[in-house]
């Protein structure tokens, strides 16, 4: 198995004709992802590398039975595009777009509560189930089919972690970048739950960073509901405090935004901490050998 995407994924791309959309759609197709449709309002009826382009998502889904969407729509229109995909009943929407106004996402996340659509992102690199399907920006060739699930708030740091795993001969089941924005559709806990239930996954690598409480939430879930081992790294131990968080924002999160607090919470929940970003792969190998 794997989670969220596999060989049965039929991908549609919103914003397929834009420069980023077309570039990454081609990379996904090269990897083996079944891209069945594109959507760009006004360009319906045309073809993109043999893939039919539609004006609207609803139409595209009806004609092609697409069951996932990858979104490269500019930030001013991205909220609208996510809502359109959810309205059309697309079960999985992966929003790559960075820079969506926060208040737009407040409305989007509320709307999604009434729908069965799962949103990954926004401001994320996407996800990959190695050897099966890639929906995102990550370089496909650093991945390898295997038993480690990777969940991360970062893009390139995830590539770094995955490359370390692959170099040690440790493959991955599914790797997901949840996105760097404060408001995201799918969080660590959602993904840990899916990976806990995935028979292919034997270990999970979690890559966190400073800000928010996602790592503490994950730690609570790990302690109470995860049977699979976790290896964690939290970036930003050297980051200066107060550069991103406003005064009142800190009321909500308190001092929990620091790397130290997050590492302590994950460690107390039983996760094995990689103390250096260069040791994520090695730490995973040690834990896998220990649990074998």
């Amino acid at each position, binding site marked *: 198995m794997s989670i969220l995407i596999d060989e049965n994924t039929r991908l549609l791309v919103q914003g397929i004709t834009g420069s980023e959309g077309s570039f990454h759609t081609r990379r996904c197709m090269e990897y083996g992802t079944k891209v069945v449709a594109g959507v760009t309002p006004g360009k319906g009826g045309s073809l993109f590398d043999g893939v039919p382009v539609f004006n609207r998502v609803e139409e595209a889904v009806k004609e092609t039975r697409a069951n996932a969407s990858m979104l490269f729509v500019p930030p*001013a229109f991205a909220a609208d595009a996510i809502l359109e995909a959810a309205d059309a009943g697309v079960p999985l929407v992966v929003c790559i777009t960075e820079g969506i106004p926060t208040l737009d996402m407040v409305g989007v996340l509320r709307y999604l509560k009434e729908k069965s659509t799962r949103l990954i992102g926004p401001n994320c690199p996407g996800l990959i189930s190695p050897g099966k399907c890639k929906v995102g920006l990550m370089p496909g060739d650093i991945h390898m089919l295997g038993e480690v699930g990777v969940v991360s708030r970062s893009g390139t740091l995830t590539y770094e972690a995955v490359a370390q795993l692959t170099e040690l001969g440790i493959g991955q089941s599914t790797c997901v970048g949840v996105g760097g924005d404060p408001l995201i559709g799918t969080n660590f806990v959602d993904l840990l739950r899916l990976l806990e239930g995935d028979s292919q996954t034997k270990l999970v690598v979690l890559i966190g960073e400073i800000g928010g409480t996602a790592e503490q939430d994950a730690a609570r879930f790990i302690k109470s509901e995860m049977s699979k081992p976790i290896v964690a790294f939290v970036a930003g131990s050297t980051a200066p405090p107060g550069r991103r968080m406003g005064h009142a924002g800190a009321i909500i999160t308190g001092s929990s935004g620091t790397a130290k607090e997050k590492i302590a919470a994950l460690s107390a929940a039983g996760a094995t901490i990689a103390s250096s970003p260069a040791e994520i792969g090695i730490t995973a190998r040690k834990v896998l050998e220990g649990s074998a």
Partner: protein
Amino acid sequence: MGSNPTPSVFSPFMLHEEVNLFQLEITKRGVRNMKIHEYQAKEMLAKYGIPVPQGGMATTPAEAEEIASQLGGKVVIKAQVYAGGRGKGGGIKTAESPEEAERLAQEIIGMRLVTHQTSDKGVPVEKVLVEEAVAIARELYLGIVIDSAAAQPVIMASEAGGMDIEEVAAKTPEKILKAYVHPAIGFQSFIGRKLAYGMNLDPKQIRPATQLIGNLYRAFEDSDASLVEINPLVVTPDGRLLALDAKLNLDDNALLRHRDYPELRDPGQEDELELEAAKHNLSYIKLDGDVGCMVNGAGLAMATMDIIKLVGAEPANFLDVGGGANDEMVTSAFTILLSDPKVKAALVNVFGGILRCDIIARGVIEAAKQIELKVPLVVRMRGTNAEEGMRLLAESGLPVILAQNLKDAAEKVMAAKEGRLTV
């Protein structure tokens, strides 16, 4: 009031005639909240009917004197800086006369104000707000932010106003009332009443307070703020409510529908190199160490800083060139990195994905041509077009130390800084 709660998410910002203006590339920008001054925040809140003290902004002692004499009576001179804790740092003073206002403004304008929110060097004061002094009976707190866990705006109110609200939250969290605003319903009067009664206001203040909270919420929503705060919101002895201080941070992501916001920015309050970086759409934060680094992606950039520290050095900066960088952006980034005089060695760590390693290599080579490279440079490249990037660097004739992986890179930059390793 509360009759027009349309959430901005459904507002007509998606008008199609604006398409061309908004055809922005999806580029990596640092998540930053744009700050504005107190006097600007008060001007904005006043437009929403929120009562603020009378006053004006002055950039010279003479202007301060003029405003003070227009106001008549006792005035308060407040340093305008992007930091809190101004009172304790000597940035807020009371004057009995216009002459005293001029003298105090003379002292404050031009000083470097050090508070618990600034570095030891403080921030420069170029402007002061001259306001009527207000008699205070009670000090309250009002603030609005987006609670990311709940994915909803939350309005916070407290009777413990005028204090460091983080401290109140940490020590006596029960003193902070919270009310969430449902995105489909928007602000409603009952939310305002809940907070107004919760703050134990006088019966005759309930209605104006409810109205004020509603107006504050509309200001927050219309301006796409990431934070709005009135601390303190005072009750005067005659029972009026007044926003004695105001803070408004704007969501950088929403600049696309507020094209006038960049004009509100005060470049004098920001680090010169950080401003230069922002111009090129780069995310740069200056730190105190001596190992400069340039990385693609915020997470990897932070991890690179972490590993620099782990090998015993201190990072000089955070610099994320992002995913959509071109040669020119990389050249600017590398130039900015090297203009920090503290930098004794530089590390370029790139994991090519969207961003190709050969683009980074070309940018670095171009920058090194423009400015003399005086410090050792360690480069580690992986991912898309890494071999091409490494080849370009090797053939450029630049004294570049190539590294195999993250650990190797960190160890080499440390060794190079200490003169133990040369090309």
